[in-house]
């Protein structure tokens, strides 16, 4: 059990350094509090956002923390791959620049797997391969309208509220 955990930890740790660098050109490190007996301690995350000094998760800003968490999620997905991944408004703490970086990272991964991402950010919609619009019609319930961004179809329902 311990050996299996350490093996998985090493793979996630190495993947995390790469995904953290991919999402912001910074340095990210996962550190076990007790490497000899991992189950006795926790997992520390130490990162150095580009241009800043090393810091723990607690001192960072809302957006910096979210980006760190997303790097960890991508690292876990790389170690335990599947054919389909789903994200529900994971970009809401991010500014426009970081949303674009995240959207590009998803787009690269979507060449091999399917990603379904719910978002209100226009940047995220524009970088996807296709967008589904959902609206609620009184007494009818939810209705899905299909629309494909690639042909830069004017997303009337999207534009109105994705501002």
């Amino acid at each position, binding site marked *: 059990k311990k050996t299996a*955990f350490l093996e998985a930890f090493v793979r996630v740790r190495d993947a995390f350094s790469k995904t953290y660098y991919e999402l912001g050109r910074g340095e990210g490190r996962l550190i076990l509090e007790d490497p000899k007996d991992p189950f006795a301690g*926790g997992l520390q995350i130490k990162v150095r956002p580009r241009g800043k000094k090393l810091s723990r998760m607690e001192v960072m800003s809302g957006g910096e923390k979210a980006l760190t968490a997303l790097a960890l999620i991508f690292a876990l997905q790389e170690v335990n791959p599947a054919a389909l991944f789903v994200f529900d408004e994971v970009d809401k703490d991010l500014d426009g620049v970081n949303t674009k970086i995240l959207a590009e990272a998803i787009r690269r991964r979507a060449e091999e797997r399917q990603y379904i991402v*719910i978002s209100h950010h226009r940047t995220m919609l524009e970088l996807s391969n296709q967008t589904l619009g959902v609206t609620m019609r009184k007494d*009818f319930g939810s209705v899905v309208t299909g629309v494909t961004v690639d042909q830069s179809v004017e997303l009337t329902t999207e534009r109105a509220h994705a501002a």
Partner: protein
Amino acid sequence: VRADALVLDNFKSFPRKSRIPIREGFTTISGPNGSGKSNLIDALQFVLATSSSKGMRADRLTDLISELGNKPTASVALEFVGTFTDPETKLPIERVIQCKRSIRRRKDKSAQVKYHLNGNQIRLCDLHDVLRHMGLPTSGQNFVLQNDVIRLTSMGPVPRRQVLDELA
């Protein structure tokens, strides 16, 4: 193998039968607050059986049956497209596979749940075998739900390590 369409029937805020195409690559879903976007993710978790009713924001499974419809049943089907080798001609052929999960509210308010694979009833453990075999998610790890990112950032070191335990 890849997902090809999600078909909801009287599930949560979707009382009418709705077939939603899932294309290859990167799909975004957008729409006003309360329009039913997260309900589509609940539908995916329901048919793949990767979440409890609480994870689908329902107290009981029967709460998933739409209050906008007027029947005591709901179902979600997921259609996949996979390339298989035909046993006779040995050539690769594309086949559509459908798995479906349906629920009925009985008179005593309890839930009757059934699973079907291409129309034949199967058990949950058979469904998970098939899904695992096709590389599809059978645990909730591939779903990052609304507010999961904030939860992950405010976890202490020990719960954070426990996220890795599931991997081992």
